């Protein structure tokens, strides 16, 4: 049954703060950075007004924000933080530790270009920088999806077959600071009780023959040692277990998305990918974040002209949904992958490299080319995408020579 909701005018940051309010984590530890700041500001107001019992720890750095989240989650609490760009980079060391300790921390990232040069606007380089840190990563298209996804993230992270931290990404300014109508649940208990099942229940493990809670709970019959020295005789197995958990996350993302859809009435594809006019497409574009909104507008225009073009938006980036990509793109002739991220010294942007690698598995492969675009918040108007899409049509017809990578909207 779809639960009662109310419409509010919220930007992506506020939608994040509302999701956190409705989840009511035990600890929120965060540090301000544009374009994430509104999240911590709004959430501080919820705390100050007594709407949540959360302990808000306004730490002295992002490194400490993530460190405090590790402590809070190990203690058995729900921990949440938010950051962007340089803040995410400062956390980097602890991101790997959080995932290896199997702590279900949730973090919102308002994607921003990474210094230097210093820049506050959107691109995905910050998130791409931490793509191997062992976090589940989801990319949202708008503020509504941000609200919905932050709530889902806790349930994905805490699933006993996953127990991994989750990043919820959305484009800085384009989403973080753009107000839209967002539906939120009227009663927070729909989120806290009905969806999340009340306070977090840490997983149970066997330790020295006894069942214990995987937490720092002093009442455990055998106390847990978190973060021991792990050398060549065990480290590899632990990393293997972690990669299996990441594999498990794939199905859990779908299940949680579906379960949430029954309460909210909202779906984003199957929770993993969001296809648009792909079924009969000969040309496909692949992208993440907010650009797909503009792309759909251009696709509609081209469809009216009879051009068979479609879009595959990835909502889930980690674990990388390579089977979905193979399945959804196996019939197309040309794929254009759009990376809003730096490609220093690489064959192309990270989304391109992995998409192309996935498609390599197909017997008959489409041509796959890369566009790097929108760095540092560079505007991405429909005409720019149209130009690129026309080029893809040209490749499909043999009138344009295929290439590996191009840059869109840059002065060479």
């Amino acid at each position, binding site marked *: 049954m779809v639960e009662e909701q109310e419409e509010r005018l919220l930007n992506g940051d506020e939608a994040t703060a509302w999701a956190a309010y409705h989840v009511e984590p*035990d*600890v929120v*530890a965060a540090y301000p950075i544009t374009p994430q700041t509104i999240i911590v500001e709004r959430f501080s107001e919820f705390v100050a007004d007594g709407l949540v*019992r*959360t*302990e808000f*720890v*306004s*730490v*002295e*750095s992002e*490194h*400490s*924000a993530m*460190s*405090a*989240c*590790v*402590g*809070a*989650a*190990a*203690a*058995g*609490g729900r*921990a949440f933080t938010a950051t962007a760009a340089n803040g995410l980079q400062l956390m980097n*060391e*602890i991101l790997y*530790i959080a995932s290896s300790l199997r702590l279900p921390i949730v973090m919102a990232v308002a994607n921003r270009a990474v210094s230097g040069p210093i820049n506050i606007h959107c691109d995905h380089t910050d998130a791409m920088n931490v793509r191997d840190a062992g976090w589940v990563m989801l990319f949202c298209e708008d503020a509504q999806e941000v609200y919905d996804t932050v709530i889902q993230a806790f349930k994905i992270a805490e699933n006993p077959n996953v127990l991994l931290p989750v990043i919820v990404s959305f484009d800085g300014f384009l989403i973080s600071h753009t107000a839209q109508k967002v539906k939120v649940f009227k009663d927070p208990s729909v989120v806290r009780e009905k969806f999340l099942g009340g*306070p977090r229940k840490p997983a149970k493990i066997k330790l020295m023959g006894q069942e214990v809670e995987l*937490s*720092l*709970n*002093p*009442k*455990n019959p055998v*106390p*847990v*040692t*978190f*973060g*021991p*020295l*792990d*050398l060549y005789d*065990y480290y590899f197995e632990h990393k293997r277990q972690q990669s299996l958990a990441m594999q498990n996350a794939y199905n859990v993302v779908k299940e949680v998305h579906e379960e949430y859809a029954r309460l909210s009435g909202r779906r984003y594809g199957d929770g993993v990918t969001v296809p648009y006019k792909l079924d009969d497409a000969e040309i496909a574009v692949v992208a993440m974040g907010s650009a797909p909104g503009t792309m759909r507008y251009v696709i509609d225009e081209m469809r009216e002209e009879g051009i068979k073009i479609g879009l595959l938006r990835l909502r889930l980036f980690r674990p990388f949904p390579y089977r979905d990509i193979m399945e959804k793109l196996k019939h197309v002739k040309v794929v254009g992958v759009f990376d809003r991220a730096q490609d220093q010294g690489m064959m192309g942007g990270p989304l391109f490299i992995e998409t192309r690698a996935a498609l390599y598995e197909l017997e008959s492969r489409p041509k796959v080319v890369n566009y790097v675009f929108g760095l540092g918040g560079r505007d991405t108007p429909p005409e720019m995408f149209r130009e690129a899409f026309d080029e893809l049509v040209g490749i499909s017809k043999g009138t344009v020579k295929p290439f590996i990578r191009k840059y869109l909207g840059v002065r060479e």
Partner: protein
Amino acid sequence: MQKKWVPTPIEIAKKPDYILPGHRLCAGCAAPIIVKLTLKAVPNPENTVLVNATGCLEVATTIFPYTAWKRPWIHNAFENAAATASGVVAAFKALKKKGVWKDEEPTVIVFGGDGGTYDIGLQALSGAIERGHKFTYVLYDNEAYMNTGIQRSGSTPFAAATTTSPAGKVIPGKPQWKKPIGFIIAAHMNAYVATVNPYYWQDFVVKVRKAVEYDGPSFIHAISTCDRGWRFDPSLSMRISKLATDTCLHPLWEFDPETREFKITGQSLYLAKNPDKIIPVEEYLKLQGRFRHLFKPVRRDDLIKTIQDRVMKEWKYLLKLAGFES
């Protein structure tokens, strides 16, 4: 503050240990003694959570699949033990508010080395203290980065030889003085701060008890002798530890943030009243290989005097802070 608790040796010996035998810290290392004494001073050790910064203590006590810790324990990274502790404290506070955790909030104790405290972890420690989380941070100060092979830290004393401040032909060991970490933490004005010496165990446990009972952050600075890094025979560990205080190099004091008073305690109080009983620093220096270049091949009276003068200058400063006229 609580009324004075003066435990007997038997009372302390009878209390259970929470760091168990089998760990791989060196013979002669003072760190496990510091851990033992700390946990013996906690009124309710069963309701305790421990946090450990990267370093010798962490590495040598938890080689997977073994652990020496009979209490819930977490190691996160090198520079963030205090931040990790703030998360633990905050979580139990919230869980208590929500009625999920029904008992008293656990006592949270952090153990960090000097590298993890004076240097790379100072920001996280200062932040956590400023925010006022209730936890006790125990610095075991072995005066260098021992785990990575005896590199100098902000705590390494003047003239000490380490692998990154070697005694060379031109530069005789570390050119800088030790950072006054206790005063730096005391300057936050909201933390109970005390220096301790495991040799003077009674002063040690009384202060740790005050620290964990203080309704706010607390900081215990324990001198921690290291036979490998300081280059002495392991059997001399406690003798050298004793000398650290008897020479006034590591005087025993406490700072009460309520009254803003510095107090000299234990053996150091005795020395304040009987200055003729202060032992010359040379007696401490000459037992340790890290200061060998002060004595051989040629005796460096100039450097020994520089150290002695500095120690007395700092001791006088402390006496003044503690209200002694000199």
